[in-house]
């Protein structure tokens, strides 16, 4: 499964490289103040069924919580490994990308009128703790944490894209929503790629660490969908 994910990561990174040279990133529409009145970033589809609305609610709630947790994981890792000349800039780069993801998710939460999860503060504490503890275990363990988290998040975004196929194509916010999720999925898989390149698999008890962190992420996703 891991090998498959790594191959996927390479493929997504390549695809993204081609895509970025052809057109601007989907999320840039959200970061452009001049676009704030654009219906694609300021309105939500109203003619969707209750099931679709509920699926959209839980999907964006989980995504936002995931980005909060990811930010705090990188913060925890950066506190410990930030001064390492090789790992510090790498963590900072991934963290900056997560900051952008969170800023976009916050805008999407307001646009689609999503109730945020009540577990935000739990996600922050757990994320920081996970990041700091794995970083204290060493550089490879920190990368193994990144690999495990990004694998689950990448797969989660992929599942969401399939779920979102049922949303009405006619509303301008729907194609943009899908493009943003695709972009974020590719970013997360790029982080996975970086983690593997930086010897995540040499971490002590790598398989155990990956399965524990991966299971924790899956539990957190289910909790944030509901609470």
């Amino acid at each position, binding site marked *: 499964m891991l090998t498959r994910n790594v191959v996927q990561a390479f493929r997504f990174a390549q695809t993204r490289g081609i895509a970025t040279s052809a057109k601007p990133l989907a999320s840039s529409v959200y970061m452009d103040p001049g676009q704030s009145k654009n219906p694609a970033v300021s309105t939500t589809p109203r003619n969707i069924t209750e099931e679709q609305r509920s699926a959209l609610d839980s999907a964006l709630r989980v995504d936002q919580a995931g980005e909060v947790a990811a930010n705090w994981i990188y913060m925890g890792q950066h506190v410990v490994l930030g001064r390492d000349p090789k790992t510090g800039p790498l963590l900072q780069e991934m963290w900056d990308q997560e900051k952008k993801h969170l800023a976009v998710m916050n805008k999407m939460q307001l646009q689609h009128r999503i109730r945020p999860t009540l577990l*935000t503060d739990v996600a922050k504490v757990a994320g920081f703790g996970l990041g700091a503890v794995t970083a204290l275990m060493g550089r490879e363990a920190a990368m193994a944490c990144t690999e495990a988290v990004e694998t689950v998040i990448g797969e989660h975004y992929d599942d969401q894209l399939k779920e979102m196929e049922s949303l009405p194509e006619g509303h301008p916010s729907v194609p943009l929503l899908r493009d943003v999720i695709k972009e974020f999925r590719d970013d997360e898989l790029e982080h996975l790629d970086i983690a593997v390149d930086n010897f995540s698999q040499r971490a002590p008890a790598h398989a155990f660490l990956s399965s524990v962190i991966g299971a924790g992420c899956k539990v957190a996703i289910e909790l944030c969908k509901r609470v």
Partner: protein
Amino acid sequence: MSTHTGARLLKLALPLVRTHGFTRDALAFSVLELPPPETLSSPLSDAAISSLFGPGSKAEHTLINFFFDEGLEHMRYRAQAWSGSTGRSPTIKELLEERLKYNEPVLGHLSDAFASLASASASVAQLGPFQIPPVDPLPGLKHAFRIADEACYLSGDASTELSWYARRASLAAIYTAAELHQITSPHTTDRFLESLLDSSSRAKNSFDEVALFSSYLFKSCKGIIKSLGAN
């Protein structure tokens, strides 16, 4: 009759609430307001009301909830008109005032409506030898929360995470207090609402200042620890 017909009759029943209250009578007489050639000469039968809007007090609750839904629609419509004429989003105060104005024609029947909703789904409970009044606060809370949420959305409020809940909870409490005040003294509602919003804003500012001060304190401590060579 279809759901569409039900919605049409509910719309026609709203002006009749002034005279009949949120009752099955208002629903029964709504068919007399249909435009020709659909106009009927006699009110809807009890069986037809039950079939369209639910049995017993459920029909009344359907009418009350429709009134609340239309209130939200009214806020949206007013917000759009504001944006069109002034080029800015309406403020929370303007939106809540507008929603309270929407209550005015049926003010005399609102307390009955809330009482009816509160007693709808509650079952009689016992606390030792005492019988607790069967009151269900959820419909009232839901009503206030929906208005607070709509006001936040229409005013462009950007609260996220836990402040999303805090903002809506405080506005729902303010709106509930203002609405209760409106039922007893309608002429002073706007001033009462304004004073509540001012107090809430002052409380928020004080809280923000404490949070800012705490963050400075934390940063100072961090700096002191670093300068001692702990990191």
